[in-house]
């Protein structure tokens, strides 16, 4: 095909692209998919959250307005789940971010063999959450956990420690497992950001006598603002909505010490069969996430053209 014919077809395509029919034909399938898979479930959940919808009373689903929201927010178990989720998020997000950044800085060094390490570091993130949960349960179990075996052999403990049975250690155990599972993605995102920093800028700062901390604070960190924002938002969302790990590791126990918000929403819906309150909890969680995301966007403002 000649260059002239190519230009013609591109021109024709551009012409077609500007027509209303073309736009409708290309956008409609996507809009239909979004409507079916996003808008409809969203609207359905919104309607459900305003009805008394108990599966054990299938014929009695009256409209009750915002009563489900009021009920769940007054419920002591929801308040406990919100507290637990806040603690969990406050512990995991900074740890995941700092560890991810530290690993990225390490992997950014030009050292032989680090290429393989960069691939290996993604491994925990590539493992499905349920599998990760099972691995950690086998590691931490108070009767036959491998970690207990190791600590006992090293003389660090005198007997097996029930990491997942004690309210004081169960939450930290879930936090550690979550950090292990989550840090690789931030590490890779930060590493990508680090590799975009121009070498000459770093060299110039060295020549000017800038120390390690000054280089990190004035060069590295500003260049990492965009990935940092992504990591903070993503990890907060993940921490607030984490479910699988708790499901496998502790089932929300002992007692309610690891009952997170997402677990509470799940249990309300599928264990207590209260679809109305379950939907209300999900909307509260979504609103909570939205507030957090807006707050992050305000705090870590990324100027145009930066990164």
């Amino acid at each position: 095909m000649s260059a002239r014919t190519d230009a013609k077809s591109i021109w024709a395509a551009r012409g077609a692209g500007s027509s209303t029919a073309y736009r409708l034909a290309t956008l409609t399938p996507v809009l239909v998919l979004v409507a079916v898979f996003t808008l409809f479930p969203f609207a359905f959940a919104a309607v459900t959250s305003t009805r008394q919808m108990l599966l054990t009373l299938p014929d009695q689903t009256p409209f009750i307005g915002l009563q489900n929201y009021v009920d769940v927010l007054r419920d002591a178990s929801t308040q406990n789940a919100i507290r637990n989720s806040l603690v969990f998020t406050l512990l995991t997000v900074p740890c995941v971010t700092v560890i991810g950044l530290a690993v990225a800085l390490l992997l950014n060094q030009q050292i032989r063999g680090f290429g393989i390490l960069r691939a290996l570091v993604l491994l925990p993130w590539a493992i499905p959450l349920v599998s990760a949960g099972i691995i950690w349960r086998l590691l931490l179990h108070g009767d036959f956990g491998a970690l207990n075996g190791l600590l006992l052999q090293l003389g660090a403990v005198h007997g097996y420690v029930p990491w997942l049975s004690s309210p004081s250690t169960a939450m930290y155990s879930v936090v550690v497992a979550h950090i292990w599972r989550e840090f690789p993605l931030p590490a890779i995102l930060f590493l990508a950001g680090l590799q975009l920093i121009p070498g000459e800028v770093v060299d110039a700062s060295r020549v000017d006598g800038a120390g390690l901390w000054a280089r990190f604070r004035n060069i590295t960190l500003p260049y990492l603002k965009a990935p940092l924002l992504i990591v903070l938002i993503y990890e907060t969302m993940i921490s607030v909505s984490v479910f699988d790990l708790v499901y496998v590791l502790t089932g929300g126990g002992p007692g309610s010490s690891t009952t997170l918000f997402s677990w509470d929403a799940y249990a309300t819906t599928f264990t207590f069969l209260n679809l109305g309150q379950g939907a209300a909890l999900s909307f509260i969680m979504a609103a909570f996430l939205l507030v957090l995301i807006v707050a992050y966007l305000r705090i870590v403002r990324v100027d145009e053209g930066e990164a």
Partner: protein
Amino acid sequence: MASLDELVSSVFAGRIGRREFVRRAVLAGISAPVALAFLEACSQGNQANTGGPVHLQFMVWSYEVQTIQDNIKNFEKNDKSVTVSVQDTSWNTYHDTMATKFTTGSAPDVAYSSDHWLREWVAANWIVPLDKYAPDLASQKSEWAPYALQGMTLDNHVYGLPYYADLVIFIYNDKLIRQAGFSKPPANWEEVATQAKALKDKGITQYPIDIPMKKDDPWTIEIFYSMVYSRGGHLFDQGNNPVFNAAGGEAEQALQWLRDAYTSKILDPAVLESAEPDVVKTMGAGQHAFTVLAKYNLAELNLGQHDQKGNFKMALMPGSSNSTVGFVRFYALSKAAADRNHAQAADQFLQYFGGKTNGQYVVAKRWALDKGLGFAQLPLYDDPEIQKAINAWGNVDLEKQQAKVAAPKEGLTPWWGTWDVYAREQIGSVLAGSTSPKQALQNMATKWQSLKH
């Protein structure tokens, strides 16, 4: 031009193929996907009428799935008119998985169920009475143990055919207690604590008692019921009102006993992360000497690959009344199966699985012989083969004695399943020291009242 109904009939009669069906449907102005979906929907209800085998979906919890598949194969060999596919999920997640399946339109035809959930599932309109849809199956009920029949009956309708019926029993390691100088098992809970302390002090085991108390393990509540019953107590009165919260009552004593055992470290500190299989493993390894489990675990402990194999015995549930929970797990027929016109096929299938084939309870007997599962079909107790098998790992006479004082769970109502989950959380909180036994029982009673209204 033929109507869609006529075209569908032609497909089932074999006069036209599916491709031709779609072609003609499109000519009639019906889109291909709609026509195919209609054909698919009709095929479910028409299978029985066309002479082709009816396909049943069978949902079970993950226990010996290979045996279940083998039983299905045997059934299909004898009955060519029905094919069955089985799906499984773990016992701990079974309730929630089934709730999802029933509400999302993927309900199986036949499913395992339990007396735990009967009222809930009936209230939600998920299962239908067998005496209405498969009356010949329910007609065998005169041969079932009364507590099992009671566990499958609601408003005078029978909703299940027994898969197995068993007892929650007290199991001890005879070799270990003899090492500690005891010649007989404990007769009450105080003696359990005394013997356990002796075992611990002599260094025989670090944590002599282990009981599955993991929050998501449904056994927890049945074990707690048993500990209350054995003290001569009750959890609910006949009107399903809570009595477990009576100050100083048997339920409070049972919870206090558990808390004391936990703090004095005679109860395994990992008890809150231990489900039934974990306890069987650690008991088998000799890490503990006492437990409370469903009776079939005694067969596993004495016959399975365990270090302490052969050393385990059952004792009457410690306490003044020796009472315990008798429970039933059963095959239920789903509403979806009835809507799909699969009730007849399910009847044939269940007749093999829970009923009689050539006058024999084939599958129930196999479970009893191979795995030591208890049974509701009382004539099986007279079977010499079964008597011999039970005595190889247990004690038929003691089992009968325990069965005589067994009782079904009290308070079974449509909201019991929800209350159960909350109650388990409260029991866990007591063990973990987050709440007192008295407060936990009060919370459980408050929850019950709120669910009731």
